[in-house]
C-alpha cells in the first residue's frame, strides 16, 4: 500500500491556508508588528489594516463594518452570541432559547450550560433528510423566547437549512435570530440584511484563512454584552490585542471565498455527485442528508458492516484524508449526534464516511477515491463479524 497520492477531502474540518492569504499575512508577522491601539504610525497602520479587513468581512456578508466583531474562532462567536443574548434578555424575563438537535457542540454545549443556569431550551428536531421545518420553529417561539439559533449548513451532512424562512418568522415575532454559518460562508450566497439575520458566526480556517480567527456579525441596534473584558478593542466589546496577521488574512480569505461561489460550486457539484453515486454502488450504503439541499462539496455516506475509524485509517494509508461520525472519532462511546438525529441506528452511524471536497480535488482524484474505497471497504468487511452476520441474514443487534 504505497502512498500514491495525497488527497485532502476534509475541508469541513479545516482548510489549507491559501498562498494569497499567507502572502497577505506575512508582512504583519515581520515588519508590520504594531499594536493597533498605539498612537504612532506603526500602530495606526495596523489599525487601518484591521479596519480594512473588517470592511471586507462586512461586504462579504452584506453587513456594515461596524456590525462585525473579530473573535478567536467560530466557537467563540457562537458562545458570545448565545450567552450574551441570554444574559441580556434574562433580565427582561426572557429565559427561553430555541435551537436544533443537530447543531455544532459550540451551540449545544452552550445551551446545556445555560440550562443549568435556569434557562429553558427547546430543541427543534430535524427530518430524515436532515432539514429543519420552519413551522416547527414558529410553533416553538414563546413570549419569553430570547433567541433562536439555527445553523446555516450542517457540518457533518452538509444540509442547508431554510434560513430565509426561519429569519422571517423570527423577525415577525420580534425574536433575535442567530445562525452558525461556519460551514456555509463561501459556499452559499449570504446577505444578512436582506435575509433578516440578526447574528451570524463564521470561522477563518474553514475558508483558507489560518486557525484562531473568526468573526461575529451583530445587527446594528442589538446590544450584546462584553464577552471578554479588559480593553477597548472591537469598539469596547471584545478585549484583547487584535490578532492582526490573522485578521488581515481573514479579510483576504473571505473576499476570495465569496467572489465566485456559483462558478466554484459548478465545478465541485458534479465531482461530489460522482463520489456519491460511486460509493452508493457498494451494497448496504446510504446517503445521509438531502441530496439537493446540501453543500456542494459534502458527501456523507453510511457503509454498513464496518466502523468509521478503521475506514479513515485505511484511507489515510492510501493518502486520502476524510472524516467520520463514528464513536471512535468522537472520543465517546456514542456516534455522531447528527447522524442519530436523522434516525440512523447506532451501528449504522458508526460506519459513516464524510468527504468534503473543494475545487482542488480533481476528476482524477475522484477516480482514485472511487478506486480505493471499494477495496478498503471489502477488506474491512472481510474481517468484520457484523458483516458476516449480515450476509447470513442474522441480526447483529
Amino acid at each position: 500500500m504505497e502512498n500514491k497520492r495525497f488527497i485532502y477531502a476534509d475541508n469541513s474540518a479545516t482548510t489549507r491556508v491559501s498562498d494569497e492569504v499567507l502572502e497577505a499575512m506575512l508582512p504583519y508577522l515581520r515588519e508590520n508588528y504594531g499594536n493597533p491601539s498605539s498612537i504612532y504610525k506603526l500602530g495606526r497602520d495596523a489599525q487601518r489594516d484591521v479596519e480594512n479587513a473588517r470592511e471586507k468581512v462586512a461586504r462579504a456578508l452584506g453587513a456594515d463594518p461596524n456590525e462585525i466583531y473579530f473573535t478567536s474562532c467560530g466557537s467563540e462567536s457562537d458562545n458570545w452570541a448565545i450567552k450574551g443574548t441570554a444574559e441580556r434578555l434574562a433580565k427582561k424575563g426572557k429565559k427561553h432559547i430555541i435551537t436544533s438537535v443537530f447543531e455544532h457542540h459550540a451551540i449545544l454545549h452552550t445551551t446545556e450550560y445555560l440550562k443549568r443556569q435556569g434557562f429553558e431550551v427547546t430543541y427543534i428536531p430535524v427530518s430524515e433528510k436532515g432539514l429543519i421545518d420552519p413551522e416547527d420553529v414558529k410553533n416553538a417561539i414563546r413570549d419569553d423566547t430570547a433567541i433562536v439559533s439555527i445553523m446555516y449548513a450542517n457540518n457533518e451532512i452538509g444540509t442547508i437549512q431554510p434560513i430565509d424562512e426561519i429569519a422571517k418568522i423570527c423577525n415577525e415575532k420580534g425574536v433575535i435570530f442567530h445562525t452558525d454559518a461556519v460551514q456555509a460562508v463561501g459556499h452559499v450566497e449570504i446577505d444578512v440584511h436582506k435575509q433578516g439575520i440578526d447574528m451570524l458566526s463564521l470561522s477563518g480556517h474553514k475558508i483558507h484563512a489560518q486557525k484562531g480567527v473568526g468573526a461575529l456579525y451583530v445587527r446594528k441596534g442589538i446590544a450584546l454584552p462584553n464577552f471578554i473584558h479588559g480593553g477597548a478593542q472591537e469598539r469596547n466589546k471584545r478585549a484583547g490585542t487584535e490578532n492582526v496577521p490573522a485578521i488581515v488574512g481573514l479579510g483576504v480569505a473571505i473576499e476570495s471565498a465569496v467572489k465566485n461561489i456559483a462558478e466554484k460550486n459548478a465545478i465541485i457539484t458534479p465531482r461530489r455527485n460522482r463520489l456519491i453515486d460511486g460509493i452508493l454502488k457498494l451494497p448496504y450504503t446510504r446517503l445521509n442528508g438531502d441530496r439537493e439541499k446540501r453543500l456542494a462539496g459534502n458527501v456523507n455516506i453510511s457503509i454498513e458492516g464496518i466502523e468509521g475509524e478503521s475506514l479513515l485509517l485505511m484511507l489515510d494509508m492510501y493518502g486520502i484524508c476524510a472524516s467520520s461520525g463514528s464513536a471512535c472519532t468522537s472520543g465517546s462511546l456514542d456516534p455522531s449526534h447528527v447522524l442519530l438525529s436523522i434516525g440512523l441506528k447506532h451501528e449504522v452511524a458508526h460506519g459513516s464516511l464524510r468527504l468534503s471536497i473543494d475545487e482542488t480535488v480533481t476528476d482524477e482524484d475522484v477516480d482514485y477515491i472511487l478506486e480505493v474505497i471499494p477495496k478498503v471497504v471489502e477488506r474491512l468487511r472481510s474481517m468484520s463479524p457484523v458483516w458476516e452476520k449480515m450476509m447470513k441474514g442474522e441480526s447483529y443487534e
Partner: protein
Amino acid sequence: MLYSEKVMDHFSNPRNVGEIEDADGVGEIGNAKCGDIMKMYLKIDPETKVITDAKFKTFGCGAAVATSSMATELIKGRSIDDALKLTNDAVVEALDGLPAVKIHCSVLAEQAVRSALSDYYTRQGIDPLPIVGEIKEPEE
C-alpha cells in the same frame, strides 16, 4: 488520536485474521451499538492443552483491530493456563501503549479470549465459570 507504531502495524497488517472452521472454542464480545465486536476462534491441543491456533474477526476502530491481533499473538502456542492469565494491561504494554479513550478495546480483547476459552470448556462438558470466571460485556 495518536497511535503507537506498533498499534498501526497491527492495524495495517493484522495477524491471524479469519476463522477456524473446526475451532475448539469460539467467543464473541461487544456489540455493534457500541461500535466494537470481536470474535475469537481457538484451536486447542487435546493432549497438551496448548493453543495451537488463534484467529479473530473484529468490527471496530484501529485499536480494536490492533488489540485483537496482539491478543491472538500473545496466546498462540501458549497453554490455556497462560491464556487465562492474559490481562488487558499486557495487551496494552505489548502494543507500546494505547490512548486513554481506547483502553476499553484492550479489555474487549482480554474478554474475547476468555469468552472463547469459556466456550471451549462448555464444549468439553466442563462448567467454565469456576475456571474462567464471569465474562464482562462492555457497558452500553
